[in-house]
């Protein structure tokens, strides 16, 4: 694996949300749903660190990342244009765990805000697994559901919520899931989003004995296990440890995670 320059070939923007399509046959062919990339946003010294991005999808020689402009790094990245080159390391980390018992079963994916990013790739993989895929997608307002149309176009069963009720169910996506899941009877749940959302879904799925996996977000120093900066409290063999999200994650099973 080498770090590589890759060209932006398409860009779509919805206010602070951005979708970049990047040409990289190598990354595309090696990626699994749930894995991530470390992108050096500019060659200057500030911001110094690379930024981690979930792989949003792969298609042929191309990959996509989806992100929210929410800080210095993403702000600079959001200003990149088609044909600009990005310095990318990856794919990194371990993706979602998909076992054969899920074949032909119903599964639920829950994305809160930009947490939808890794779930699109997962949804497309699960569909060919095959699984019946239901997607729950929540945001603060209807403006925070930019991928709604895309998910509908791909004919996924979609359940949307907004905190202010401007689209779909009024309230948190975790509440919508809580109200809806008994009728769906999912065999597995996969979620990514704000910590509070994931924590609630984790409790709910553990009560109902539904296996759940969570893709965790963290600031990362290196993405390759060298700096030990991106740790999360994880249960291992009966004891708790600080485990590197980049190396052993970013996806963890519900029962492993010690929520803060």
């Amino acid at each position, binding site marked *: *694996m*080498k*770090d590589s320059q890759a060209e932006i070939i398409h860009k779509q923007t919805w206010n602070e949300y951005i979708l970049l399509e990047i040409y990289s046959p190598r990354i595309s062919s090696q990626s699994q749903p749930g894995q991530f990339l470390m992108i*050096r946003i500019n060659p200057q*010294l*500030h*911001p*110094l*660190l*690379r930024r981690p991005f979930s792989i949003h999808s792969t298609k042929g020689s191309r990959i996509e990342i989806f992100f929210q402009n929410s800080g210095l790094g993403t702000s600079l990245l959001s200003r990149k244009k088609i044909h600009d080159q990005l*310095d990318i*390391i990856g794919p990194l980390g371990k993706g979602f765990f998909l076992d054969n018992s899920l074949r032909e079963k119903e599964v639920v994916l829950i994305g809160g805000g930009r947490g939808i990013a890794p779930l699109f790739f997962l949804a497309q993989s699960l569909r060919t697994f095959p699984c019946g895929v239901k997607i729950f997608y929540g945001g603060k307002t209807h403006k925070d559901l930019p991928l709604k149309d895309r998910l509908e176009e791909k004919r996924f069963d979609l359940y949307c919520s907004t905190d202010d009720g401007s689209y779909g169910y009024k309230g948190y996506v975790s509440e919508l899931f809580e109200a809806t899941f008994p009728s769906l009877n999912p065999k597995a749940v996969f979620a990514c989003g704000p910590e509070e959302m994931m924590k609630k879904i984790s409790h709910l799925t553990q009560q109902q004995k539904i296996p759940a996996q969570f893709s965790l977000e*963290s*600031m*990362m*120093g*290196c993405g*390759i*296990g*060298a*700096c*030990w*900066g*991106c*740790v*999360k409290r994880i249960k291992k063999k009966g004891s708790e*440890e*600080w485990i590197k999200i980049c190396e052993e994650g970013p996806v963890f099973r519900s029962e492993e995670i010690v929520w803060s």
Partner: protein
Amino acid sequence: MKKDLCFGPKKLYGLKMADLSVDLGFLQLQNPVIAASGTFGYGLEFSPYLDPNNLGGFVVKGLYFYPREGNPPPRLGETPCGILNSIGLQGIGVKKFVREILPQIRKYQTPIIINVCGEEDQEYVSVVEFLNQHPGISAYELNISCPNVKKNGRCPALDPQDTFSIVRAVKKVSSLPLITKLSPNVTDIVEIALSAQQAGTDALSLVNTFLAMDVDPQTRKPTLANIYGGLSGPAIKPIALRMVHQVAQNVGIPVIGMGGIMSGEDALEYLIAGARAVEVGTANFVDPESTVKIINQMKKYCEQKGIPRIESVVGSLKI
């Protein structure tokens, strides 16, 4: 004739390939670039990106005798041209290291240096006594300067007596050369350096990170859970360079310089200021191939300037 021209920079520049090797007295390095402790994992993490055999050496992440839990997150922050960390030396301990890691990294030709940690003097001694029994290690780097393990960044390298006592105790039992890593969080780093020299250290490496903090004005919370952490990266380079220059002028043992080296030119500044070798740290996070790129840039500098041996650059500051 034509064929020769195609074959290389040596013909084009009209001089031989530059010799990048440096002699630390106790250890000959094929080039002056060492990957710094805490930024290069246990030496295996970077194998997808570079061949460790091409480095001057690498320093394994700090090892205590026992496994160590480290500090709670957030452990990282980013500041202009720098990063702030309070990892707290989380690690696997010497026994697991010797069992699981050393057999895998021993195969590298490049010198392996172990960063040795301890809660008290006795733990440093125990780590060294244990590692003495296991071949494949070239030197110990005594970490008496981590700002993230005791309250308010306390560490032995802040005090000349503490430094002397610990270096003396470890030197007594060590079967390998000893490099003492100094802290920049002192008024007079030369005083500490002289103390370590007097206690018998074979070389000095400096500087460790600067005790620092960062605050989020929106939440009024510190960026790091530990409040204080260590600042590294290009932001610290001019201060670290000044300290390396001061120390190199006042000691009679080799100095390994570090702090914010991102390029071959940065590394050369340290050599010119008197360092015999350098350690590259934060740059490894930014680009895992940094060390190799820095070595190539140093080679190019020598070739372009017609410098046959890089050792001649050491301490060549023109005043």
